[in-house]
């Protein structure tokens, strides 16, 4: 079983949505953090260069229209070759009037880069600009952070001279720092993302646990192991379970009322019929007898059709072994003279997914026929396979003629049109089996251990999980 949730589950949906959105969130966050940090660092660099500009301004002197700078500046990095801090003073034509000792070994291309190629326009006194000159073809060592400051220097002859002071610092340390920051940010955010996903997975499992519990309860309900949803649920789910329980109870009560009403109706019709029958018997009136028998069959048939129903949630799964036991005990009593001998091969795990009254009616009618028409020996086998319940019942009687079995087994055949002695009970059983989308066949003589008489094979859908395939001998 995979640890990851499937995409069609609620947890799966939330998890995979997070899996898609979280990297996007991390990328955006990382980018924002990086830009903020970079901006902050560049600002600091700008301020640092600004102070160096002021240093150069304070050291500069003009004599005879020529700029004069001391040989040694207060900032030692200006005096040290390739120190990474360079100073330049340019005139209006971008001619280098002075360059710091640190830039003495800089290649001409780099100086040109700093002095001409990427300067921000003509000199405008008072303007300070931060810029990052870089040569697309140059190596990383030629990338700089530079600050230019334009001034107008008043000369003695009431003239003024426009000058541009440029201080450039090697960008490499800042670059390394920014790269390191970016990597650290990625690592931290990535790690936090993964951790967040795992925590979210756990939270979702915990948060949706009541739904899982509800699902398990619904399954036990469907399997007939319980008749209502049990347990306490969170405030969001409790109203649903309460309403479901109320619905189930109401439905069960309504079914019971319906069933009782129909039984009462049948009772109130059948007693007058019994009175008429008794009088008809006294007067030997065959027409009345015939019509009473027909009315009786119609009542029985319609009553049976009205009360039978398919499996509904909340209905108990009926253990076939228990029902068979009840019926064999009962029939032993009714057919005591026949000294019935039952051979039962019952799988205890066989459950009928429906109403107990319907199972009693199916098995009662079939077994009653076996007792009535057999010679006292009856074999019952039950098994289940692929969610199908199989019940086979055979006797040692004469069997059933093919014409009768054909009429009875026709799907939807009306049991109330059957004549007494032609298997009305079987027709009722077939009717119920059909209503459960099951099947029934009748053969003369079934496979061992079945007997040579009529063998009724019943197949019914079974919704319950199976745990055993081997039938037990009862």
């Amino acid at each position, binding site marked *: 079983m995979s640890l990851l949730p499937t995409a069609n589950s609620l947890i799966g949906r939330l998890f995979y949505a997070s899996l898609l959105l979280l990297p996007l969130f991390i990328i955006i966050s990382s980018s924002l953090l990086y830009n903020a940090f970079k901006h902050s660092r560049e600002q600091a660099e700008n301020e640092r260069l600004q102070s160096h500009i002021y240093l150069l301004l304070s050291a500069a002197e003009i004599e005879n229209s020529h700029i004069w700078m001391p040989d040694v500046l207060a900032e030692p990095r200006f005096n040290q070759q390739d120190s990474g801090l360079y100073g330049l003073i340019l005139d209006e034509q971008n001619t280098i009037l002075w360059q710091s000792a640190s830039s003495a070994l800089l290649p001409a291309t780099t100086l040109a880069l700093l002095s001409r190629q990427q300067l921000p326009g003509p000199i405008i006194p008072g303007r300070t600009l931060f810029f990052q000159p870089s040569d697309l073809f140059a190596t990383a060592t030629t990338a700089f952070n530079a600050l230019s400051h334009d001034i107008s220097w008043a000369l003695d002859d009431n003239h003024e001279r426009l000058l541009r002071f440029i201080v450039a610092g090697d960008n490499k340390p800042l670059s390394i720092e920014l790269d390191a920051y970016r990597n650290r940010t990625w690592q931290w955010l990535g790690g936090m993302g993964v951790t967040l996903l795992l925590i979210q997975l756990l939270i979702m499992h915990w948060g949706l646990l009541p739904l899982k519990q509800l699902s398990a309860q619904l399954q036990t309900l469907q399997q007939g192991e319980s008749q209502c949803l049990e347990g306490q649920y969170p405030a969001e789910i409790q109203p649903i379970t309460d309403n479901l329980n109320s619905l189930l109870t109401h439905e069960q009560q309504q079914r019971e009322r319906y069933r009782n009403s129909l039984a009462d109706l*049948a009772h*109130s019709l059948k*007693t007058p019929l019994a*009175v008429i029958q008794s009088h008809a018997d*006294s007067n030997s009136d065959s027409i009345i007898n015939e019509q*009473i028998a027909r009315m009786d069959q119609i009542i029985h048939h319609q009553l049976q059709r009205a009360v039978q129903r398919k499996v509904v949630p909340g209905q108990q799964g009926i253990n076939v072994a228990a029902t068979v036991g009840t019926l064999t005990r009962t029939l032993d009593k009714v057919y005591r003279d026949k000294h019935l001998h039952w051979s039962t091969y019952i799988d205890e795990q066989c459950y009928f997914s429906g109403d*107990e*009254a319907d199972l009693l009616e199916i098995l009662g009618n079939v077994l009653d026929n076996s007792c009535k028409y057999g010679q006292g020996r009856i074999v019952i086998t039950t098994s289940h396979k692929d969610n199908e319940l199989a019940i086979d019942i055979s006797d040692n009687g004469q069997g059933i003629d093919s014409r009768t079995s054909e009429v009875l087994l026709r799907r939807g055949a009306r049991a109330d049109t059957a004549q007494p002695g032609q298997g009305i009970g079987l027709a009722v059983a077939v009717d119920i089996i059909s209503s459960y989308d099951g099947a029934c066949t009748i053969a003369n003589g079934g496979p061992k251990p079945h007997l040579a008489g009529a063998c009724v094979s019943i197949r019914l859908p079974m919704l319950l999980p199976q745990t055993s395939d081997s039938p037990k001998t009862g």
Partner: protein
Amino acid sequence: MRLLLIEDEPRLRDSLTNYLTREGFSVDVADNGEEGHYLGCEHPYDIAVVDIGLPRMDGIEVITQWRQQQRTFPILILTARGNWQDKVQGLEAGGDDYLVKPFHNEELRARLNALTRRASGHASPEITIGPLTINTAHKVVLVQAREVALTRYEYNTLEYMMLNADKVISKSELTEHLYDQDFDLDSNVIEVLIGRLRKKIDPSGDLKPIATLRGQGYRLALNQ
């Protein structure tokens, strides 16, 4: 055979009483469960016919209470609810057989005969003791393969004695099983009945089928 019929529908009750009386049963009736339960506890019936849907006390409850009180007579359940759930419920409660309404009178008689016969341990409707044979289904009596015509009470007396062949049957027991509860137990009608029976099944006086045990009652004196 003394029979208790508990049925609340008056017309069906009257009709069945008439029919069963004609068939030789001594019938006591009750129109509700409580009265029926009381009668069943008070009198030694050979069989009871109980409707399930009864006022005051349900038929199932009547049967359950009888069985709890060790009343062992066979019980035929009359039910309008012909489904197996109700049949099983009735039989598990203590009923011995069921009959679904509406039914033919002949079927009722056949079921009653079968139940009384079974209760006395006889599987077949034909019971033979020595030269005497009776068919409980057709109410025919044969003595040494010769049919003997008996009145209803004579037949009932002989049938009861044959169903209880190994017992000494007191006069009062015989009276209780042959006549309904209104019969005068002090009359000597039983002695007259036994005398007539002896003459009819043993006209020559060779068999001496019924022995009188002074102060105790009668016993069938034939080898089984």
